[in-house]
């Protein structure tokens, strides 16, 4: 697309800002206990304010209410939407994006504010406009634009009961989805394992058996970790190992906040720990609040199964 084409396209989409998607329109059905009950049962929400009339009568409200998160539900177009949505400003905008290759769609943000609760018998009236469209952004999905609709909800008395801002990304998909993903993608991820080679396999194999070993030079008895083939002190290649008691002291630590890696449990704290034997090891601190971890803290390690596939030493406050 040339710069002029791009400009023409953007002029066209930005003209949608402020346009009405729908004028104030009452929902086809009033707020009703049947739909509320369906919702509450399926979501497992036992809040008596929604479904227990006896309780509600004696509550501060004096009656049941609709779950606030149902605000938008009453005005949903329903099954008819699957056979083609009536054209409006939003469908026109979406068509325009699609025509220019921005065929991907992703709801990214929803913000609802609730000013008044509604109860069975109330009518929810919704009006919607296209509130804003971002500049062109580079996203992980591909280049695209965010557009946001603003819905305003009123009741049968004309009182505002809430608003909804809904943000959608329209983007140019970067790759065709790989041949339909299979259920295999739903395996629970595990921690990233160390590759095992000549110089470290014995260590990880022992860890799998619940033991943390420290390599020891057979010649000069110097301990070393991580394992390597030669003693740096005397250059001997003969070695054996001792088992650590896993008594240790924290030398440094960090709590990992971002990015969160699938397969790891957060909050996640990594630490450099000085073992009683004298070598250092990197591991996790568990069994306490992150704020309690400090340099100099005494810890005790236990080799544990941390996920389906992984055995690791984990250190607890001693």
């Amino acid at each position, binding site marked *: 697309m040339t710069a002029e084409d791009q400009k023409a396209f953007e002029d066209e989409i930005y003209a949608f800002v402020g346009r009405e998607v729908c004028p104030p329109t009452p929902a086809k059905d009033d707020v009703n206990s049947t739909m509320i009950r369906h919702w509450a049962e399926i979501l497992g*929400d036992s809040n008596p304010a929604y479904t227990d009339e006896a309780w509600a009568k004696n509550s501060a409200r004096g009656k049941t209410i609709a779950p*606030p998160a149902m605000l*938008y539900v009453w005005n949903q177009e329903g099954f008819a939407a699957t056979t083609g949505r009536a054209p409006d400003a939003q469908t026109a905008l979406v068509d325009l994006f699609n025509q220019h290759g921005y065929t991907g769609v992703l*709801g990214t943000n929803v913000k609802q*504010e609730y000013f008044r609760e509604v109860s069975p018998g109330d009518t929810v009236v919704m009006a919607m406009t296209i509130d804003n469209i971002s500049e062109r952004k580079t996203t992980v999905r591909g280049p695209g634009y965010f557009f946001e609709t603003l819905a305003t909800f009123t009741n049968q008395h004309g009182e505002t009961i809430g608003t909804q801002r809904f943000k959608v990304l329209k983007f140019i998909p970067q790759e065709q989805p790989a041949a339909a993903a299979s259920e295999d993608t739903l395996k629970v991820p595990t921690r990233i394992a160390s590759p095992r080679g000549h110089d470290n396999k014995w260590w990880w194999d022992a860890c799998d058996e619940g033991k943390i070993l420290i390599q020891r030079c057979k010649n000069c008895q110097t301990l070393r970790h991580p394992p390597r083939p030669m003693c740096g002190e005397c250059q001997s290649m003969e070695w054996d190992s001792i088992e650590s008691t896993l008594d240790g002291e924290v030398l440094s630590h960090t709590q990992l906040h971002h990015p*969160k890696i699938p397969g790891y449990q957060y909050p996640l704290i990594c630490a450099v720990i000085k073992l009683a034997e004298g070598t250092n090891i990197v591991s996790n601190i568990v069994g306490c609040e992150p704020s309690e971890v400090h340099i100099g803290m005494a810890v005790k390690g236990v080799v544990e199964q941390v996920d389906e596939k992984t055995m690791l030493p984990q250190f607890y406050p001693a």
Partner: protein
Amino acid sequence: MSEYKTLTCAEVSVGDKLPPQDIDITTGLVVCGALATRDFEPVHHNKAAAVATGLPDVFMNILTSQGLMTRFATDWSGPEAVVKSLDLRLGAPNVPGMVMTMTGEVTAVDTENGIVDISVLGENNIWGMHMQGSVQLALPQEA
């Protein structure tokens, strides 16, 4: 009344953790949740339609996620709490077979106006963050 307790602002402090919830993402929850919120988009009830978009199965619609978020907050606060707002950012889809763990904590307490802000994170065990955001509640001033 007594079987349901609602927290008051005096009982709540910044940093309080909400009891975590593990939500089993089942086909029933995904499909029925979509229908209960009148969301009939095929990707939420028709596996073939979902697979065509590159996902392994039907996936949860946004209104169900919103519902789970408010439920998480009011399960903690009690039924006299009034939900004032909900603000969420969406991440990875929830697909049947996953477990979504919801955690949250109190980020602000305005005792004068009885307003409490809660941050909420819903992470599934396969793809990580499904939704992240905040819920604002009005709590009764006194029990």
